[in-house]
């Protein structure tokens, strides 16, 4: 029972980071039907930004987090503008290959500029462990969970309650009709990249605090896992991405806990395959029926 609870806490902490990352995949896919393979690398940029501003400019956690979100938002907008927008009307595969190219560019560019070695993320918040009847939870885990949940609620409010959020949903389902009511498609897509990338930036800073180490290739595996989370939740669905992220986090810690550490990544892919077989649209997948 105690181990179970313990794994639940660990799994939710990790899962909340996957969830933040999965949101970007799902929103971008929802609006331009692109799997943005460079999304994991935005998360890496966020972590590096956090590393630098904490070490050199002595930012505190909140400022490091917010500035990483801002920097990643801008990066996401620039990447979309330079790499994906010119291909908007090309076959989808062209944009997909470009996304892989952007990902390599960011990974190798960062390795070239800052070296490929692993660095330890500054621990601005001193870790304190709390014990409740044999279950341990650290202040960092609480911070990650609370931050991630607040950001997800904020995002959901933006999407559901604001004019830009409605515009995002309208463009996702029917770009031509959206233009006919006066929505600027390019601006809406930029906004979507900004939102998704800012979530990735936050996730990068949080993972730095949690795992204490960062490197230019750190975005690859979590990126793929978050993508799986988005698919499991139903790609295009925002609540689905959050749920998927938590599920993948729980699965990964669960597999580790039963001593199969070496298989934790394989388990994630196994879940992807199973989901694609039995629930191809994902848990919250939409089967939009349109009346003609």
């Amino acid at each position, binding site marked *: 029972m105690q181990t179970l609870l313990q794994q639940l806490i660990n799994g939710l902490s990790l899962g909340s980071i996957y969830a933040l990352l999965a949101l970007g995949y799902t929103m971008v896919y929802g609006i331009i039907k692109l799997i943005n393979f460079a999304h994991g690398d935005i998360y890496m940029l966020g972590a590096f930004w956090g590393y630098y501003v904490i070490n050199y400019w002595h930012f505190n956690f909140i400022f490091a987090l917010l500035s990483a979100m801002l920097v990643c938002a801008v990066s996401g907008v620039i990447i979309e503008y330079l790499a994906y927008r010119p291909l908007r009307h090309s076959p989808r595969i062209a944009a997909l290959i470009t996304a892989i190219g952007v990902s390599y560019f960011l990974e190798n560019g960062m390795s070239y500029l800052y070296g490929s070695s692993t660095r330890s993320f500054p621990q601005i918040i001193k870790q304190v462990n709390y014990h409740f009847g044999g279950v341990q939870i650290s202040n960092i885990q609480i911070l990650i969970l609370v931050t991630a949940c607040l950001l997800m609620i904020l995002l959901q409010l933006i999407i559901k309650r604001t004019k830009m959020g*409605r515009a995002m949903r309208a463009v996702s389902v029917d770009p031509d*009709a959206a233009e*006919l009511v006066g*929505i*600027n498609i390019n601006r809406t897509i930029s906004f979507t990249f900004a939102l998704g990338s800012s979530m990735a930036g936050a996730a990068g800073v949080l993972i730095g605090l949690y795992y204490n180490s960062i490197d230019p290739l750190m975005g690859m595996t979590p990126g793929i896992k978050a993508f799986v989370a988005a698919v499991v939740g139903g790609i295009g669905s925002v609540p689905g991405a959050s749920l998927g992220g938590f599920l993948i986090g729980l699965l990964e810690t669960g597999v580790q806990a039963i001593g199969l550490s070496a298989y934790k990544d394989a388990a994630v892919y196994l879940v992807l395959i199973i989901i694609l077989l039995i629930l191809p649209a994902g848990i919250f997948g939409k089967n939009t029926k*349109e*009346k003609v």
Partner: protein
Amino acid sequence: MAMLSVDNLAVNYGVITAVKGVSFEINEGEIVSLIGANGAGKTTILKTISGLLKPVSGTITYEGKQIQKEKAPKIVAQGISQVPEGRHIFPGLTVKENLQMGAFLQSNHQQISDTFGEIYKRFPILKQRENQDAATLSGGEQQMLAMGRALMSKPKLILLDEPSMGLAPIFINEIFDIIKAIQEQGTTVLLIEQNAKKALSIADRGYVLASGEVKLTGTGQELLANADVQKAYLGG
């Protein structure tokens, strides 16, 4: 001077010529109907007026200004809104949110809520279904929603692309009554229809299109009485 005048408009899809040198005009306050068989180019003309397609040649002049190079949002902002063929409401958004989208470019909250009131008065069913996913509405209700959405921008000119498509006769009558009422409240109407008889009977003037060209024009009554029109579009 005409409110909207289309001169020698030609539109291609790649190598396919869909509209070749069409000219027509709409005066303020009129209902003008474009009729023509499937594939005649009607939808293409509307999409070009709305800025979704760019013509290869020809001009579209609205209130004295050429607009054929402008983008769709800019055209809505100038008071032309469209109810597209097949309705194209936003599934996944509620009825109310769909209407809010129609007022996307409006910033005066008081005016938006007044317009909401007018639309709900005209389409009481939309008020009843306010918080329902728009995709769950029936076809006729979706048509009303699409019209309501277009009216939310307070257009001076409304473009209707086959509003009676796929509707039961009783709904069709209701839609045509609504179109008439829209005109009476001061909005100019460009109406595209397969249902030529109904369309011409409420139109001030009409144009008959065939394979991308205007073949015939006249008042609604003249066209209704025309032997060629009767043969081709009114079933004899």
